[in-house]
């Protein structure tokens, strides 16, 4: 539907100001993006009890925000999803996974042996924390890839 339109949006999004897209594009996106983000977060958090996980959830969240960039312009999207924030989030996700995985070492377990934590349901909470880390890194990295590839040199 919006392929031709999308390419134009990205092309002129790098640098110069462009007229806003027609409401035919922006209104459905405005309605759709909250649903996509909710579904993405649900997928990421609900991986232990239903389909999905951090990777899928992270990609769905990133795809929802990319949809926003197609409708409202890459430059505008980059204004609030700036590079330092994305890099910080991607790094934080990896560090969170390492922290959760290294924790069992303190309780006599091995690296990534989540059952060594002396809490009830430690494995479930451990898996969910790792999923959260995966989702953060994946979403931030996908957005970083998209915004860097779409952006002009002045970005």
């Amino acid at each position, binding site marked *: 539907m919006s*392929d*031709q339109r*999308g*390419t134009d949006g*990205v*092309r002129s999004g*790098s640098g110069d100001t462009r007229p806003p897209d027609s409401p035919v594009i922006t209104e459905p996106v405005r309605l759709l993006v909250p649903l996509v983000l909710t579904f993405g977060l649900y*997928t990421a958090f609900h*991986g*232990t*009890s*239903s*389909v*999905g*996980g*951090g*990777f*899928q959830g992270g*990609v*769905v969240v*990133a*795809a929802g925000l*990319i949809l926003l960039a*197609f409708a409202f312009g*890459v430059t505008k999207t980059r204004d609030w999803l700036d*590079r*330092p924030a*994305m*890099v910080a989030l*991607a*790094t934080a*996700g*990896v560090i969170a*996974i*390492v922290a959760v*995985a290294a924790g069992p070492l303190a309780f006599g377990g091995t*690296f*990534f042996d*989540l*059952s060594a934590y002396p809490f009830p*349901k430690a*494995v*479930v909470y*451990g*898996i969910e924390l*790792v*999923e959260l*880390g*995966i989702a953060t*890194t*994946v979403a*931030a*990295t*996908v957005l*970083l*890839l*998209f915004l*860097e*590839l*779409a952006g002009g040199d002045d970005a």
Partner: protein
Amino acid sequence: MTPTLVSLLLVLLLAAGVAVALFRDPLAAVVAFGIYSLALAMLWSVFRAPDVALTEAAVGAGVTTALFLVVIARTSGRSAETVRSRSTVRGRSLLVVGAFVALAAWTVPALPAVGDPSAPAFQRVAPAYLARTPDLGVANVVTAVLVFFRGFDTFGEVVVVFVAGVAVLAVFRREVSA
């Protein structure tokens, strides 16, 4: 798992794959590639692999299409020349592709049936995963395998994704100061 649906999806996959190869217009090829990914996602969900289907739909049809679109927009784009020129298929290429497909198709009868419980893949660690997962309090075996039993592999994959982001920043010579 209805054979008719599977056959229809396979025909769609084949048609989309051939279309990607034959389209001269990059934009049309990207759209055909998105159709290919969606058909593949539907096939995975028919085969009851919803986790893989979700990944294929989100990554293959969603993010990859968007990345291709922005790259096309930033590079040559569609010139009237490429759009108008007819795609030609060389006889030699057709011969090599045909031989490769025939070779691959020759091995297909040796594969176990879909979902066959006596398949080699279900013999070694899979029963242990299935037996231990309920004790963990995790309902989705795929998640338990990914994050608990094979957590180290998944950690490596996340680092690969992270490195991809770092590589793009390095290629564009962008530096991030705190």
